């Protein structure tokens, strides 16, 4: 879902850049030393994930992993996604520099939302709860990203309902795959290293 340069109008680009900058600043503030390697790992994962494509009819869609990034990083998902998208633009010409802010928000905001909603459930001990939360976190993250993407394109003249319906339909397999991937990775970490879910920053005292 990388939007290319030259598609969006200036106000959208500026709004996206501002929102991404704000999110990144907050994310960096909440990123203390212990968290940095984790952020780096997930940035790499997100960076690589977009290379996995699922052919859908004439076009193709790609995995995002933004749900996973959100749950494991919280606010720090913004700098992680920003860096990953920047590298994709520079190395593979996916997306663009002017549109980097918008693409970051399109991926990052759903990641954060999914974190806020599902984080507490995942920290609990109930296996079924963990599986369900992981799955729906993945699904919701992709769905929201697709909707935000359509919304951004809407401002460049594309007709929203039609486009949104098309994109959501095209991404249904991605949502399913992301949900499944999330389930596997999160249950794995819950067994092997549950401390990874404790995100040490000021707000999250509700552990």
């Amino acid at each position, binding site marked *: 879902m990388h939007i290319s340069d030259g598609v969006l109008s200036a106000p959208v680009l500026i709004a996206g850049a501002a929102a991404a900058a704000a999110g990144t600043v907050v994310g960096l503030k909440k990123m203390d030393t212990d968290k940095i390697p984790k952020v780096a790992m997930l940035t790499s994962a997100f960076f690589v994930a977009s290379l*996995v494509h699922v052919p859908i009819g004439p*076009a193709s869609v790609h995995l995002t992993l933004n749900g996973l990034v959100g749950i494991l990083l919280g606010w720090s998902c913004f700098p992680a996604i920003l860096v990953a998208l920047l*590298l994709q633009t520079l190395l*593979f010409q996916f997306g663009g520099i002017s549109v980097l802010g918008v693409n970051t928000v399109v991926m990052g905001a759903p990641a954060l939302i999914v974190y806020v909603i599902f984080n507490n459930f995942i920290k609990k001990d109930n296996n079924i709860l963990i599986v369900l939360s992981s799955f729906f976190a993945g699904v919701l993250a992709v769905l929201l990203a697709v909707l935000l993407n359509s919304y951004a394109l809407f401002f460049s003249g594309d007709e929203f309902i039609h*486009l949104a319906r098309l994109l959501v339909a095209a991404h249904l397999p991605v949502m399913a795959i992301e949900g499944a991937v999330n389930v596997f990775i999160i249950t*794995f*970490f819950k067994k*092997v290293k549950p401390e990874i879910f404790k995100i040490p920053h000021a707000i999250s005292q509700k552990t």
Partner: protein
Amino acid sequence: MKFIKRRYVVLLLIFSLYIFVTLQVFAHGVNIFAYIEDGTIYTESYFSKGKGVINGKIEVFDNAGMLVYEGYTDTKGGCIFNIPGTGDLTIVLDAGMGHRATYKLKAEELRDSYIQQDPGRSVDEEPVSESYISVSEKSGEEDKVGNESAGADRGRSDVSIEDIRKVVEEEVAKQIRPLSRNIAKLQKDTGLSAGKVFAGIGYIMGLMGLFLYFKSRRS
């Protein structure tokens, strides 16, 4: 300070597996390239994997930003049209869903094609044909021009040389077309490769190192 915790190594292993299993499939970007032949522009639009873009919108803009041509790609991703103007041209592909790519054609490339198309226009070539005639007149028999002998009137020698020139140009153009196509494509390929993936990951690790360093200096 503990740098490499086991869980991160495990994470890295999992994701490496992920990479190796799936690296042969590439995500999508769109690309367009164009080459010129005989006053016609051939464009090809395709996704990163190589699949052609079907029914993608093609718009061509001139130097001033005016739209000089509008069309759609066919089932193979191609869109062919006559050169719609002089000067630099910018060809824009819109494959929908935010995918967009451009290709620029310089005025010089277009001009060369015009000359190919209309040999009568090339004023600077006449002195050359004149020297050919003088050579064949001098040599007498040995006549690469073919049936026209040296004694024939100049008018007919001019035409036959132009005929030959035209034939040669067409044949060469035919041979060159796949070459120019490949060159244009090469120039535009996004270069999705395993090396670049590792380069990106390297960058990320480097950033991590920098962050850790500066954070540790502060405390």
